[in-house]
C-alpha cells in the first residue's frame, strides 16, 4: 500500500481523489453506492448567494465522448445550504469544499462569508469559469484584471483554503493562473467545461435551450492535460487536475503533468463507484512502479 495522502495548502487529503462540482451533488446522492468518507474530498454543487432556478431545458446533449450541459448553477442559495444541507454533510469524515459562484464581486463575497462560518467546510473553490450563466461566471475568469479583483476580494473575507477554478475558454491559461495566485489563491483547479454547441440537423435547431453549453467528459482530457501542464510551469501553488478522468490511468497522467490531486466529474454519472476504483488503481500503479508515495510522480513527466 503506497502513501496516497497529499496536501493542498492546509487541506490534508487521505488520497488525491476528489469529486468535481456539479457532478456529485452534495455527496448524499451517492450514499446508496459508496462510503463518501473514503474519498480525498468532495466539492459540492455550485452555490450562489441568491437561489437560482438555472436555465430552461433541454440542458444536456451527449456528443462524441462527451456531454454538453447548460444547467446554469441551479441551487437554493448559500443560506439554505448553511441551514439545511450543511448539517447533513457533517457526517462525512472527509474534506468538503463548496464551489462558490456569483454575478458580481459583492455576491462572491457574501457567499464566501456565509461559508466561512461553517466549521466542517474545509475550503472553497471559487468558480470564475462557469460558461452557463449570462452575467459573471466565466466573465470573471477570462481577464487577468477581473480574476485578480474577484480573488483578492474573496481572499479578504475568507481565511481557510481557497482554490480558484480556472476556465479553459481563454487564450493563455498560464497568465490567468498567475493572476489568480497573485490575488491570493492557495491552489488552482482546472479545467471547467469548454464552451461548445450541438445542433439537430433534422429540426435545424440547437439541441440546448441556451444554444451553447459546457463540454465535459473524455473528449476534453487532452485539453485539460495540456492546461494543467502549462499552469504547473507558470505557478508554484498546488494544482487539482480536472477534465475527462474516467479511470486511474487518466488520473496518473494528470499527476505526471503536475497536478497534486484530481477531481472526477462526468464519470460519476456513468459509474457512481468510479472514484473508489480510481483510488485503488492509483495505488496499484504506484506499487507496480515501486513508488512509495503519490508525491513521487507529481510533475514527473519525462521529457
Amino acid at each position: 500500500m503506497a502513501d496516497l495522502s497529499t496536501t493542498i495548502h492546509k487541506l490534508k487529503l487521505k488520497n488525491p481523489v476528489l469529486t468535481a462540482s456539479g457532478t456529485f451533488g452534495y455527496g448524499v446522492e451517492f450514499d446508496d453506492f459508496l462510503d463518501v468518507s473514503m474519498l480525498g474530498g468532495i466539492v459540492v454543487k455550485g452555490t450562489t448567494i441568491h437561489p437560482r432556478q438555472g436555465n430552461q431545458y433541454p440542458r444536456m446533449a451527449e456528443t462524441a465522448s462527451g456531454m454538453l450541459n447548460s444547467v446554469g448553477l441551479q441551487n437554493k442559495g448559500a443560506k439554505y445550504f448553511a441551514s439545511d444541507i450543511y448539517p447533513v454533510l457533517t457526517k462525512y469524515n472527509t474534506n468538503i469544499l463548496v464551489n462558490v459562484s456569483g454575478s458580481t464581486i459583492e455576491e462572491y463575497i457574501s457567499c464566501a462569508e456565509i461559508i466561512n462560518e461553517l466549521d466542517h467546510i474545509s475550503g472553497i473553490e471559487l468558480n470564475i469559469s462557469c460558461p452557463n450563466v449570462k452575467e459573471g461566471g466565466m466573465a470573471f475568469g477570462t481577464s487577468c484584471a477581473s480574476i485578480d479583483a474577484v480573488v483578492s476580494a474573496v481572499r479578504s473575507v475568507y481565511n481557510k483554503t481557497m482554490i480558484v477554478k480556472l476556465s479553459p475558454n481563454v487564450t493563455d491559461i498560464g497568465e490567468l493562473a498567475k493572476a489568480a495566485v497573485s490575488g491570493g489563491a492557495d491552489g488552482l483547479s482546472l479545467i471547467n467545461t469548454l464552451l461548445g454547441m450541438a445542433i439537430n440537423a433534422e429540426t435545424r435547431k440547437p439541441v440546448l435551450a441556451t444554444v451553447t453549453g459546457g463540454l465535459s467528459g473524455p473528449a476534453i482530457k487532452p485539453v485539460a492535460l495540456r492546461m494543467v501542464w502549462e499552469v504547473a510551469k507558470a505557478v508554484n501553488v498546488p494544482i487539482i487536475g480536472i477534465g475527462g478522468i474516467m479511470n486511474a490511468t487518466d488520473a496518473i497522467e494528470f499527476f505526471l503533468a503536475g497536478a497534486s490531486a484530481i477531481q472526477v466529474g462526468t464519470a460519476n454519472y456513468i459509474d457512481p463507484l468510479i472514484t473508489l476504483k480510481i483510488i485503488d488503481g492509483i495505488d496499484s500503479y504506484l506499487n507496480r512502479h515501486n513508488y512509495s508515495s503519490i508525491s513521487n510522480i507529481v510533475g514527473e513527466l519525462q521529457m
Partner: protein
Amino acid sequence: MRKTVRNLKVISNLRLNDNHHLIQLQSSEPLETIFPGQFANLLVENSAIVLLRRPFSIYSVDYKENTVSFFIKIIGEGTRVLANSPVGNFISTMFPLGNSFTIPNEREKILVVGGGSGVASLMILSQALCDNSNEVSILIGARSSTDIVSLDQFSRYGEVFTTTEDGSSGLKGYVTDHPLLGAQIGRFSRIYTCGPEPMMKAVAQRANLNSIVCEVSLENTMACGFGVCLCCITDTTQGHKCVCTDGPVFNINDLKWQI
C-alpha cells in the same frame, strides 16, 4: 429502496418487430422492490460513441427468478446496441430509479393510456393496479397495428382498447378520439399515461376538463438518473424539478402545462 449498480445477465432477447425488443435480465442476488413507473439506467458497452447510460422503464419484474425486463424501441446507437444484446452477455444496470404512480386500493376505475415506447412503464402499472383490486382499462395508441406489441400481456390485467392512425387496429385516429377519453370518460376516477408528450398533453387536457386525477410519466435527456447533474428538469408549480428523482411520474396539477 436502495439504488444499486449491478451486472445482470441477459437471459432472453425477444425481437417483437423491426425496431422493438424485449430483453430479460437476471440478477444473481435478490432484487430491490420495484414500484410501477420506476426506471433503470443501462450502460451501453462496446460502443465507441455512447458515453452515458440510457434510461428505460422497468417493463416487468419477477422476484422469484430475480429477473427484470425492458421494452426497448431502437431510435439511435444506444438503443440499437442494447436491443441487440446477445443472450449470456452482462449489462450494467442502475436501479430502481425515480418515483412511481399512485396505486389506490379502493376498487377504483382507472384508465391507463399508452403510446410508443411509453407503454413500457404501463405493464407493471396495470399489474399493480389489478393486484390491488382496481378495475383497469388499457388504451394503446399507435401509428399502425405493427407498432402495437404485447397486447395479450396487457389483457391479463384489464380490458384492452387500441387506436391506430391508419385504422389497421382498433379505432382509426388518436387515443383522444376514443370514446374512453370522450363520452365515457366520466367512468374513471383516475387516468394514468405514458407516451409521446403531445399525446400525454391531450390526455391530460381531457382529464383536466373532467376533473379526473391524472398522472403522467415524463421523459427528458438525462446524464445521471439519480438527481445529481440537474440536467433533466421540468417546470412545475414548485419550480424546476428533476424528472429522474422527483419524477418521472407527475400529477398534471403540479406541471405548468398549458392545458
